[in-house]
C-alpha cells in the first residue's frame, strides 16, 4: 500500500493574531510553525496503514523551503520520504496549489493507492484543493472522514454529521480528507528523529500561476468590546446569574 499525505506549513497562533503593517499577512516573527491538527491525523493514518499492510508513506507540501522543518518532523513519525514544492514566497490560491500538487503527483513513479488530506487548514479552510486534485486525477474522494478501514481494495469511511454517522465507500486508488478524532497522533521517538534527518526530501521548484482568487488585505474580526459583566465571586453570585437567566428567557 503506497500512501501520500499532503501537508501545509502554518503559523501556530494560540492567542491573538497580529497583522503585518501592510495588512496582507499575519505577523509571524514571534510564532512557531507546524501543520494543522487534521493533518497530524492524516500522517498517523498513513503510518498505521503502512505498518499494517507494508508499502511506503510519502509526504508532499507546497510552500517555502522552511517547510522542510515540518516535513522532517513528520518523517520522524514514520513517513518514508518527502517532496517539497518550493515557492518563491508568493501567494498561491487553491486552484494554483491544486494544479501544482497534481503535476507533482503525476511526476511520481509511485501510483499512490491512497492520498490523504486534512479536512481543512487552520489558516485558510477553502474546502476545495482536495476536490480539485481528485477531479484532475479522476479519483473518488470522501471528505471529512472520522473513521476509516481499508479492506479488499476499498476505503470504507465514516463521516460524522448532526444526525449521526454516514458511511461511504471509495474503491482504491482514492482520496480522503480526514478530521481530528480519526486517531491519536503519536509523538516522534528519539530514533525516529535521528532517522528523519537522513530520509530523502526532494526539493522541486514550483512555477507560480496568476491567482484567480487574489488576496487584497486582512482585518481582525471584531469581538464584543465591552467585556463581561462580573456578577460576583463564587456561589454567592448564583442568585444574580439566575436573574440573568430569567431576563434572557433561559428560565
Amino acid at each position, binding site marked *: 500500500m503506497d500512501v501520500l499525505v499532503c501537508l501545509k506549513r502554518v503559523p501556530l497562533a494560540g492567542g491573538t493574531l497580529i497583522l503585518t503593517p501592510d495588512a496582507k499577512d499575519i505577523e509571524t516573527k514571534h510564532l512557531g510553525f507546524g501543520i494543522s491538527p487534521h493533518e497530524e491525523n492524516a500522517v498517523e493514518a498513513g503510518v498505521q496503514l503502512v505498518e499494517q499492510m507494508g508499502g511506503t508513506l510519502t509526504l508532499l507540501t507546497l510552500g517555502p523551503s522552511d517547510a522542510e522543518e515540518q516535513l522532517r518532523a513528520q518523517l520522524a513519525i514514520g513517513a518514508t520520504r518527502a517532496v517539497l514544492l518550493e515557492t518563491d514566497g508568493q501567494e498561491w490560491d487553491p486552484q494554483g496549489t491544486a494544479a501544482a500538487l497534481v503535476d507533482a503527483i503525476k511526476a511520481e513513479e509511485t501510483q499512490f493507492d491512497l492520498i490523504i488530506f486534512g479536512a481543512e487548514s487552520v489558516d485558510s479552510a477553502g474546502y476545495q484543493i482536495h476536490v480539485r486534485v481528485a477531479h484532475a486525477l479522476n479519483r473518488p474522494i470522501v471528505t471529512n472522514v472520522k473513521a476509516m478501514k481499508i479492506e479488499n481494495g476499498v476505503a470504507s469511511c465514516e463521516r460524522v454529521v*448532526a444526525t449521526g454517522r454516514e458511511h461511504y465507500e471509495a474503491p482504491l486508488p482514492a482520496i480522503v480528507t480526514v478530521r481530528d478524532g480519526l486517531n491519536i497522533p503519536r509523538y516522534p521517538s528519539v530514533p525516529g528523529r535521528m532517522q528523519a534527518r537522513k530520509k530523502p526530501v526532494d526539493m522541486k521548484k514550483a512555477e507560480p500561476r496568476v491567482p484567480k482568487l487574489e488576496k487584497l488585505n486582512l482585518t481582525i*474580526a471584531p469581538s464584543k468590546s465591552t467585556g463581561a459583566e*462580573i456578577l460576583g465571586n463564587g456561589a454567592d453570585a448564583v442568585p444574580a446569574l439566575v436573574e440573568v437567566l430569567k431576563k434572557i428567557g*433561559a428560565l
Partner: protein
Amino acid sequence: MILVLVDHDRGELDPLSLRALTAARKLGQDIEAVVIGKDGAGVAGVVGEYGAKVLHVATHADITDYTPQASGRALKDLVEKLNPAAVIAAGSPRGNEQLAHLAAFLDAPMASDCSSITLGSPHVVQRARWAGNLIEEANVHSPLLIASIFPFSTEPESANAGAATLSEFQPILEASDTVVRVLSRDSGESKSGGVTLTDAKVIVSGGRGVGGPEGFSKLEELAALMEGTVGCSRVVTASGWRPHAEQVGQTGSKVAPDLYIACGISGAMQHIAGMKNSKTIVVINTDPEAPILNYADYAIIGDLHQVLPALTSAVREAKG
C-alpha cells in the same frame, strides 16, 4: 440571476440554506434555487418565502441520497443552461463540498465562507480566515462567482413571498459521479436528552478547569435540567475525558446556542472560533483575567465545582 444551492437531508431543509438565500437576495438580482434529488422538491414553499422565484430540482435515478460529485455535475449542467452571475451555497461541510465539485468541473475559482459579496469585474468578497478570527478581502477573477456564505454572518430573513415554481431537470451523469455517496447511516453517539451540539439551545461546556472526567457529571446535571447538552474544549477531548463529538471550536463543532456556559475554559482563539456567535455567553472561571471574559456577557469568578452545584439547585428551584 443568482443561483442558490439549497441543501437538504432526505427532504429536510438545511436551515443554513435560508441564510444563503438571504445573503443572495442582498445582491439585488433575481434569485433561483436548486435542490439535488427529487425528495428536495418539498422545500419549494419555504425557498419561495425566502425569495427564490424558481426551484430547479435535479432528478436522476442514481441520485437517491447525498452524492456530492453528482451534485457538482448537476450544478454544472444548470450553470451552463442558465448562465447565472453567481452560484451561492451555505458554508456548511456539504455546501462547500458540492460547490467545490462544481468549481473543479468548471476549473473556476471558489471563495468559501464569505461574509460579504460585491458582484463586478472582478468580484470582491470578504471571507473568513483563521476560523473567523480574520476577515480577508479578495478579488475573484472569473465571470461566474462561486461562493459559500459564512454560517454566522447572515441572519435568515423571510422575503414573505409565495412558493417557488418547480422546474425539474435531469443532469447527465457519468459513472464516476455516483461512486461516492451515502451508503448507510446510524444515529451515532446518543447525547444527553437526545439534543445534538449544533441544535442545542443551551450548552454547558467544560475545559481543563473541570479537572477530570468525573467533574463533568456536574455539567451534565445542569445541561439536562436546562434541556441542553454538554460541550468541551480540545484539552478535554485530547485527554480522553469526553468524546470528540462534544468538542467546540475550530477543529470541533461551531455552535451558536441561545446560552453558552463556559466552565473552566480559558478562551483560546481556536475555542472562541466555535462559540463566539452564541447569543448569551456566561463564564465561570477562577481567573478574572481569562481571555474568554472578553467575549462573554456575564461572568462569575470562582471555582466551578462550587458554583455549578449551587447554580443547579437554584435553577431547579426556579423551575419549580
